[in-house]
């Protein structure tokens, strides 16, 4: 599903990611660890398709519409409601039975009651949960999650645990985290960045 060969990314003079090579098959879960500044975020952005490598080759066997990405920023409009945000993304991703799917996700992540509130009124944890909804909305075959447990409280983290467990059965995942023990049980491969 993913093949990286000597992938590097630099911005002008600054190296964001140095020589990374790995392979990931369908249905596997790649756990990416590393200190701050080691290039975890850059790698995940490359895999998601937000940037191209400066050197090396990176092949991802999923089209744009099949990738779900959760980054450091939530990628939601602050002045739209939770529902409106998901509706927009639902349209852009051509999600079928959009309202039902949105409703189901909002409920699963405990955001149903806040669906008509502007995102600017959400707590950090709620924003993160909405971002997760956004990433999962179109049922992607490849999930790229950059430190998804950030800002989640216990209940939110438990929801995510459950979600990861279900999805890792038949979807491909790439997860970067500061808390590897949480995901270690599900991980089939590990990549430690220096």
């Amino acid at each position, binding site marked *: 599903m993913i093949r990286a060969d000597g992938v590097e990314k*630099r*911005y*002008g*003079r600054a190296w964001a990611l140095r020589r990374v090579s790995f392979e990931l098959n369908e249905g596997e879960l790649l756990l990416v660890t590393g200190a701050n500044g080691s290039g975890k975020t850059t790698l995940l952005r490359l895999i998601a398709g937000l940037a*191209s490598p*400066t050197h090396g080759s990176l092949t991802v066997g999923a089209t744009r519409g099949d990738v779900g990405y959760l980054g450091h920023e939530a990628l939601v409009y602050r002045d739209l409601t939770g529902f409106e945000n998901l509706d927009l993304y639902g349209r852009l991703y051509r999600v079928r039975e959009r309202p039902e799917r949105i409703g189901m996700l909002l409920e699963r992540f405990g955001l149903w009651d806040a669906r008509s509130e502007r995102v600017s009124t959400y707590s950090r944890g709620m924003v993160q949960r909405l971002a997760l909804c956004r990433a999962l909305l179109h049922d992607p075959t490849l999930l790229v999650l950059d430190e998804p447990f950030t800002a989640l409280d216990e209940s939110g983290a438990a929801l995510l645990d459950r979600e990861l467990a279900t999805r890792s059965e038949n979807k491909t995942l790439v997860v970067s985290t500061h808390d590897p023990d949480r995901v270690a049980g599900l991980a089939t491969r590990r990549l430690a960045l220096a």
Partner: protein
Amino acid sequence: MAGALVLVFFVAPVDADQGISQKIFYFHVPLALTSYVCFGVGAWKGLRLLWTGVARHDLESYTAIHQGTIFGALTLLTGSIWAKASWGRWWVWSEDQLVLFLVLFLFYCAYFMLRFSVEPGSRRERISAVYALFGVALIPVSFLAIRLSKNFIHPVVFTRHGPQMTHSMFAAFCVAWAAVLLVAYVMYRVELAGKRIDANLQDLREALTAS
């Protein structure tokens, strides 16, 4: 290059009897044309960058546009001198070429502003390339606009000192143009080489400190 400069200076004395304004013309028009060529090269390299993604095209595009801007500034300078010699004023709006260069000069100065406000990387390369392409699209559109604007801004009062070129004058003009192009090309190569050496030096430094 030295030979080219000598040639340029020999051209001027050949037509000394024509008057100062004519002499400037031999520099002014080649400078303008060379500027266009540089901007064209800049846009072409920009297109190559967008097409292939090879980073070296970005440096080439930037250098070409840099040269084009320098020659554009010289065009404006010599144009101003020519205006003073021909019409007694340092600036005239009736000369389409000159006004066009003013607009282009503003446009390409903004290029550098843009370039230095964006962090280095592939994003900056792409944005610079797109802007360079907009530049060459602007050249004909601007020219047309300036032409059109004269209908309602200034009726064309001044008669042009258009050079009616005899054979020898034309030959001199071509020599001058070739010389200016050569100077531009040499400056382009020098600047490009300088920047490449700079980059290689920094790479080397990094490699040494890393190991």
